[in-house]
């Protein structure tokens, strides 16, 4: 292995070299920290780099490996999105509100990865409180797309996606409320999975919209996705919405053919305004799936898809306004002085939150306010039921559905910031998935003008194994995931 390119390794490649003692975790971590030093002034994936503690953790991992620890994540450097609590390391949600917040506990996913030997190299930049599709709503700085620094990496998990694409972390964890793992994975040419709602504990994830949020892996290939999911999935008594259901070994789904598999392509996801290069890439990907043995129905209809945007932008801001009521400047976080308790609270919230967060709090408060609750919130919840039923119906006929992850390739920084509705539309293919609570994965499916295109694969609740099988078979038949940005 070229010592200068250790940062290009996948988890499974790095694990093999660590196990055979051909490299040490200290060397690997050193290579990643050097890479961060080299490129992060341009990419800006990190809010916080934890170099010293990473090197200590790497030494511990090397000792564990020497004693015969062969678990696949031991000694592997990772980045954690900055909305997951890390004891002793600030967790900012890329917000002024939490700029100095140091959690007294770890999120369950962090605890599980620590036990599995993770070397955390830092915390990833994001849209403030995970509200956004481009990382331009970070209160600190926008992350840039490693494939073209003038373009956005997607969002809200833009830092976690860009870091993996740029070799600043071997893998990362993101969170996905309306597409925040899958859309940036697509934009940065990596693999990103939103598991079924309830599959992964949300304890210690700073809450945005509690009935939609889910944590998932962001990795360089599908094998790595299965390895990370193996570690983070499972019931957690500290999250009452986590589901008590056995966790399979997801690597056993990595089978390179699709014989007997029935796939559907819902036409509503090929929306007006979709870029022709994206359409061509997805159509070519669908032909590849057929060659691998799947039968594909290209004329599936999910007519409720057009309601997903309004349903999402009523439910998510409504839940967010309740969750973000806790930022009052009293117990933790940013605090502004005032003439009275209410004055101080209003000023704290008025100056601690950025514009997109305020917009959504106002929208959610409006949707829940007297006179509008039934017309907006209850109506949206009822249409949510219809969207779920449509998916249930489709999954009685198909093992999985195939769609683009995003109708466009990464857009230019500043292109959509002036028009919130235009920005919201960039999540049109990913929102329905959170509304229904089903799992979805985005995998690299080609390029359009040198920019990555992602294919999204959807399945019924707890069908992560099916998604991984389709994704893996496709990946083995293509080499898109091996392309690296020139940075």
């Amino acid at each position, binding site marked *: 292995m070229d010592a200068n390119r250790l940062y290009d390794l996948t988890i499974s490649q790095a694990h093999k070299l660590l196990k055979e003692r051909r490299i040490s975790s200290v060397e690997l971590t050193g290579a990643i920290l050097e890479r961060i030093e080299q490129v992060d002034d341009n990419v800006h994936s990190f809010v916080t780099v934890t170099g010293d503690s990473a090197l200590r953790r790497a030494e511990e991992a090397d000792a564990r490996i020497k004693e015969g620890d062969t678990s696949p994540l031991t000694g592997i450097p990772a980045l954690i999105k900055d909305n997951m609590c890390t004891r002793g390391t600030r967790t900012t949600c890329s917000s002024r509100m939490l700029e100095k917040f140091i959690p007294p506990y770890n999120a369950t996913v962090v605890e599980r990865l620590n036990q599995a030997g993770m070397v955390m190299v830092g915390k990833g930049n994001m849209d403030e409180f995970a509200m956004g599709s481009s990382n331009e709503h970070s209160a600190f700085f926008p992350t840039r797309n490693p494939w073209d620094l003038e373009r956005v990496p997607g969002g809200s998990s833009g830092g976690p996606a860009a870091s993996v694409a740029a070799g600043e972390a071997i893998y990362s964890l993101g969170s996905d409320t309306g597409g925040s793992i899958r859309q940036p994975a697509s934009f940065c040419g990596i693999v990103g999975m939103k598991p079924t709602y309830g599959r992964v504990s949300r304890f210690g994830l700073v809450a945005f919209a509690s009935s939609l949020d889910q944590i998932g892996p962001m990795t360089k290939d599908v094998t790595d996705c299965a390895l990370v999911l193996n570690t983070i999935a499972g019931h957690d008594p500290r999250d009452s919405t986590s589901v008590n259901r056995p966790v399979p070994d997801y690597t056993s789904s990595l089978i390179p053919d699709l014989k007997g598999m029935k796939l559907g392509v819902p036409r509503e996801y090929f929306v007006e305004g979709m870029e022709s290069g994206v359409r061509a890439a997805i159509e070519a990907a669908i032909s590849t799936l057929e060659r691998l043995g799947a039968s594909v129905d290209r004329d599936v209809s999910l007519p409720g898809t057009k309601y997903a945007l309004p349903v999402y932008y009523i439910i998510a801001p409504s839940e967010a306004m309740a969750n973000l009521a806790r930022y009052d*400047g009293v117990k933790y976080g940013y605090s502004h002085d005032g003439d009275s308790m209410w004055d101080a609270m209003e000023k704290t919230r008025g100056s601690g939150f950025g514009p997109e967060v305020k917009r959504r709090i*106002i929208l959610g408060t409006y949707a829940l306010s007297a006179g509008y609750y039934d017309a907006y919130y209850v109506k949206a919840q009822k249409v949510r039921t219809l969207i779920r039923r449509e998916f249930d119906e489709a999954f009685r006929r198909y093992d999985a559905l195939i769609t683009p992850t995003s109708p466009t390739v990464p857009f230019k920084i500043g292109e959509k910031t002036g028009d919130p509705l235009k920005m919201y539309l960039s999540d049109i293919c990913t929102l329905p998935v959170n509304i229904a609570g089903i799992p979805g994965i985005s995998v690299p499916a080609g390029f359009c003008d040198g920019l990555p295109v992602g294919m999204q694969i959807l399945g019924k609740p707890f069908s992560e194994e099916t998604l991984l099988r389709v994704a893996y078979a496709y990946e083995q038949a293509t080499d898109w995931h091996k392309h690296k940005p020139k940075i």
Partner: protein
Amino acid sequence: MKLSREDVLHISALCRMNLSDDEVERFRGQLSNILDNFEILQQVDTTNVPPTASPIPLSNVTRDDEASPSYRQGDILANAPRQEDGQFRVKAVLE
């Protein structure tokens, strides 16, 4: 749906969040536009359709009532903007 300046000020009071004059004006226009886009939902027939609050059916998840160690007071207070005698300090609630 056209929001007035008073509507936006009323909402900002409900959620205890100061807005500048610029923000009030900007949100008024943007939210009116967003709400117009939501009108499409009124076309959907939802007679006899129950609302979905959570993707998984949940009812009263409880745990056994067993004592276990909690966080140390100092750890919890460490992030407090103002504290006094082991407590969070706030301005007077009642004038």
